[in-house]
């Protein structure tokens, strides 16, 4: 029947766990975050572009947060500077949240698969 170069054994998948309920809950959370359709149209092009741009902003935002925390822990910021930095990052987070809502994107959407390197965030 098949003239494939391989002559493999049939691969019958099995699922094995002693804790099915816990994993079902986790997988249900994942399923709930999926979009209801996938399509190539003007709207998805716009959303795809927004996703890419917002992912990069989110990546930079997280770097800024880590850098701010590192500086705070290093003791080289005055209490006023910590407050100012915290407020700026808080506003940035709120703004990004607003943009995500506008483009119908969830937190899990903001990531990029970089192949063998893994995921960006």
């Amino acid at each position, binding site marked *: *029947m*098949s*003239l*494939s*170069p*391989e002559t*493999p*054994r*049939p*691969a*019958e*998948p*099995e*699922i*094995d*766990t*002693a*804790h099915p309920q*816990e*994993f079902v809950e*986790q997988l249900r*959370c994942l399923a709930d975050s*999926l*979009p*209801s*359709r*996938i*399509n*190539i*149209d003007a709207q*998805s*092009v716009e*959303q*795809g*572009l927004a*996703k*890419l741009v917002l992912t990069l902003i989110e990546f930079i935002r997280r770097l800024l*947060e*880590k850098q*701010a*925390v590192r500086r*705070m*822990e290093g003791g080289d910021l005055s*209490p006023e500077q*910590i*407050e*100012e*930095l*915290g*407020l*700026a*990052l*808080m506003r940035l987070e709120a703004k990004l949240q607003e943009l995500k809502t506008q483009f119908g994107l969830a937190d899990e959407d903001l990531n990029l*698969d970089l*192949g*063998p390197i*893994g*995921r960006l965030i």
Partner: protein
Amino acid sequence: MKQYVYCLTERMNDLPSWRGVAGSSVYALEVDKFSVFASDFFGEHVRIDRENVLAHAAVIQQVLNHTTPLPFKFGTLVTEQQLDNYVSATREALQSKLALVRGCVEMNVKIISSREPARATASGNEHETPGTAFLFEKRREIRGEEERAAEAIEIAAWLEAQLGDIVWETQINPNRLDTLLVAVAHLVRREAVEEYRARLKEARHERPELHFLISGPWAPYSFANIDLEFKTHFGVS
């Protein structure tokens, strides 16, 4: 009309008859040195519903019974021209991916830790100003994430030590947020699947604090990375 594509393999000359998404017949398109499994799709949208997802997975699983395919992402619609362009532009990468997965299948291990995560201490002063409180909260989050990532890597390394040389490639996906600590995908030779299961069964007794879900064999979803994603998003070939 477009083609709904399922997966790509080395050339296959003869096929049984399968039904795919929306009940359409699945056929193999010969593109360059490859076979691309596809079916006709007349609508504009691919609905993500149980029936379509299962049909997509079933086709890939059927192909996996004959050879190891590189699966396309669910919902990938292309024209023949787009497919030709894609294959000719990525021919060498596809051949190299097929060589990597040849004779192998993917096995997945998902792990939930029943241990309560260590909580980083909150800031000492509950009456901090908003900006300062925000940064202290971020510090707590970052530390928590780093602890989880370190634990995930330790568990993946332990797993690898248990499985030894039967694993050809590993993909580790630490989870920063939920109780699911880590998902690990292993590329395993088909003839080693039974041994893989047996070794894991033995190993999980060593870590009673961890809850395991072992599944497979699957097509090498985690190792294929056929990147039609940008093309799907941006509608270009």
